[in-house]
């Protein structure tokens, strides 16, 4: 948490004690909800979790658990963890483990409650996990794009614009040429172009980076809406035919029960996402390249002194980030629904930004945060299939409330790269 470099110490609110009790309180609250909401109001009967998709060849038996009893048990675990958290000052990994367990307990209790006695059938666990991954793709790619920029010291609020223009170009190119791969490449390049514009204004013309980002988002929305109205709608047969990638099952891995259908039976975007997560995580923290990028983002003067080209590094990273976000945008059209519609990214870029901050500017942290959002989108879909008597708007609200609680109670102050958002002018 503390800045090791010679930077002005960030202003700090007195957080440590407050946060310890906030976290403990949150766990206990979750436990009480498990018991008194999901336990007491559970319908009679077992909750069934189906572990293979309907009609899949290696048919696995579903897991049957009694609804109410499961919720009581999980609630007790959660409360126990809360008391433990309040009394004992746990090490860092211990804190993380308790968070994970408490959240898992809450989710399982929720699912058991939702499915117990349901007339619709078992909860499709595979569907839920598959949907989580695919819903997370644009968020993960957007967060990685933001990370690439911000680790080198350029704030990227234009992720939303990169996703949107990427989606537009991907749909237009894939429709006009008939080639989905061309669409993907076109989308990626458009995202890179937005990145280039961001870089020119932020790095060369020294414009406030938040201004450029916001402005690029507005331009992207206006421009895609405009072109959609004027070109895509009148010539839909040429420019918006809805080409999509097919699914690609990985030969051996795809046949493993549970893991196969979830992780290795999707279209190429999921595999690109795996690769990018891995590459960026390793490149950023295990290579000379990554060390230089981080040096530029933390202390550009020092980096310049030892001969790292600061402005070039920033240009390269911002454009690379744009290319990645462009792929995420392409996923929104050629990777899923095919057709472009007005404002198709609908705020994913901002969620990705939040995921990046939530994940403390690390690839794996951002992925975890993005998965949380993806999971709750998909959970909402699954729960409305089970006809849970809760308004879908409340369910849609849940991940955002959860993020606020998490950011306030569990994560607290995060430390961005020290030179993030500060233009570098060579003295």
């Amino acid at each position, binding site marked *: 948490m503390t800045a090791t470099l010679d930077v002005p110490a960030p202003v700090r*609110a007195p957080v440590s004690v407050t946060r310890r009790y906030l976290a403990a309180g949150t766990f206990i609250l979750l436990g009480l909800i498990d018991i008194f909401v999901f336990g007491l109001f559970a319908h009679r009967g077992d909750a069934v979790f189906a572990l293979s998709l309907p009609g899949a060849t290696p048919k696995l038996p579903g897991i049957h658990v009694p609804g109410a009893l499961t919720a009581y048990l999980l609630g007790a675990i959660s409360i126990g963890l809360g008391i433990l958290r309040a009394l004992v000052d746990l090490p860092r990994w211990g804190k993380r483990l308790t968070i994970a367990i408490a959240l898992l307990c809450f989710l399982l209790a929720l699912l058991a409650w939702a499915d117990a006695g349901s007339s619709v059938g078992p909860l499709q666990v595979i569907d839920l996990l598959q949907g989580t991954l695919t819903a997370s793709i644009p968020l993960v790619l957007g967060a990685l794009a933001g990370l690439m920029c911000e680790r080198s010291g350029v704030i990227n609020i234009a992720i939303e614009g990169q996703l949107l223009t990427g989606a537009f170009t991907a749909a237009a190119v894939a429709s006009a040429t008939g080639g989905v791969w061309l669409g993907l490449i076109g989308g990626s390049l458009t995202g890179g172009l937005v990145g280039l514009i961001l870089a020119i204004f932020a790095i060369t*013309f020294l414009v406030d980076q938040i201004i*450029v980002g916001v402005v690029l988002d507005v331009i992207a929305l206006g421009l895609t809406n405009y072109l959609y109205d004027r070109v895509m709608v009148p010539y839909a047969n040429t420019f918006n035919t809805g080409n999509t990638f097919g699914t690609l099952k990985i030969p051996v891995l795809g046949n493993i029960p549970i893991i196969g259908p979830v992780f290795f039976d999707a279209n190429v975007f999921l595999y690109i996402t795996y690769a990018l997560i891995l590459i960026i995580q390793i490149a950023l923290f295990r290579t000379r390249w990554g060390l230089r990028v981080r040096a530029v983002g933390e202390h550009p003067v020092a980096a310049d002194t030892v001969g790292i080209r600061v402005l070039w590094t920033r240009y390269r990273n911002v454009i690379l980030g744009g290319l990645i976000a462009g792929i995420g945008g392409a996923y929104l059209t050629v990777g899923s629904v095919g057709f472009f519609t007005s404002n198709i990214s609908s705020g994913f870029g901002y969620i990705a930004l939040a995921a990046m901050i939530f994940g403390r500017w690390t690839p794996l942290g951002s992925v975890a945060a993005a998965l949380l959002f993806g999971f709750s989108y998909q959970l909402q879909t699954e729960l409305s299939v089970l006809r849970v008597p809760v308004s879908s708007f409340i369910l*849609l*609200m849940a991940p955002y409330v959860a993020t606020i609680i998490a950011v306030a109670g569990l994560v607290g102050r995060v430390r961005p790269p020290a030179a993030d958002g500060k233009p570098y002018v060579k003295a």
Partner: protein
Amino acid sequence: MSDQDEAEPSAAPYVPTATTTAQDTGAPGPDQPGGRQPLTGNAIIKAVTEGHSVVITILAGFVALLVGAVLIVASDPVVLRAWNSFGYAPGTAFSATWSSVAAAYSALFEGAIFSPGTISAAFHGGSIAAIFYPLSLTAFEATPLILTGLSVAVCFRAGMFNIGAAGQWIGGALVATWLGYAVNLPIVLHAVVCVIGAFAGGAVIGWIVGEIKARTGAHEVILTIMLNYVMYNFLAFALSSQSLMQAPGQTNAVAPSIDGNATLPHVGGPPPQVGVGFLIALAAAAGTAWLLSRSTLGFEFRAVGASPSAARSAGIRVERVWVLAFLIAGGLAGLSASTIVQGQTAPLTTTSYGTYGFDGITVALLGRARPLGVVLAGLLFGALNAGGTVMEAATGVPSDVTNVIEALIVLFVAAPPLIRLLFRLRSTSGAGPQAVTSKGWSG
């Protein structure tokens, strides 16, 4: 502009004079071809050749309109066909291009400022008020933007980024609407109660952000983005359940219409639609200006905005400033909702919040987070929005093009070195970084 920004101090009791940046842009037009013309008066020549902030703003508007013209032309099938036959009829290509752009921009102007037809009509027994109709539409469109712009600006001045004006807007809208239909009060008093309620509703949503930030150190950008989505969904939830705010007997997600007593009246008859809402916006701008530049609290805001650690050393309670800045910002966004909810006949729906929250960011940026600048920027955007609607109706050019133009103006105004480069203006003070608003995430 850069001289002005360099004058912005580090936690010093400098009271910035109201900005001169956004002046004269109410009528953006290609009237400043460059900086080479000999004009009367040394000061003017100097201002033009050295790129004074007013000149930069006008040139930025000009470049933005030029880009907009390219957009209009490039997607006009008539023009494209004319250019395809450029070989045989080059004249047609140019005239088609010109007429396409001229038609769109003159409709934009007539919709936003005034339409020459109304003057001749007034001479022939038409209504004189009709002359001011476009201007009144501009004021009407500008009203909510000025208020959300002020909301974002207050946070900028305190060193924070408020992306949450949309959520705060909804908070205000819900309270104003509820007070508007569920309570029975005499005329005037009812409207006042609703306006105050809207301020309070927005302030509560803003306060949540400030309080969480102050208590736990959570980042306001995440908090405001998340609260926006919470509020979007809460609005949809409230408007689609009969037990909460859905209009009785409705299947659509819509609130009941507010009571006639609670509406904000128009000033001076129907055709110029300048309502009390516009006056509220101006009053709020004056109040914000007073707060920021004349009050102790405003001084604390600016001190924290310039340097939180210095402010803390000087004995200012930084956390309190965060809470209060967000509370006031939320209230201003709530007022923006009040001018829409109480100023229109249409009841609150799940899309009423429009893009006011996000437009507030661009308005605040263009207005340099100064209240007068925000008012002028809001009027400019209001003019473009009002004109854009007329342009779309008259020529079929989607009004989205005005959003692009607005964003480009903000971008170019924020990049004086680029404008200097484009128009080959001399640079006087070098291209120093301009720290108008934000200083990265750690504020």
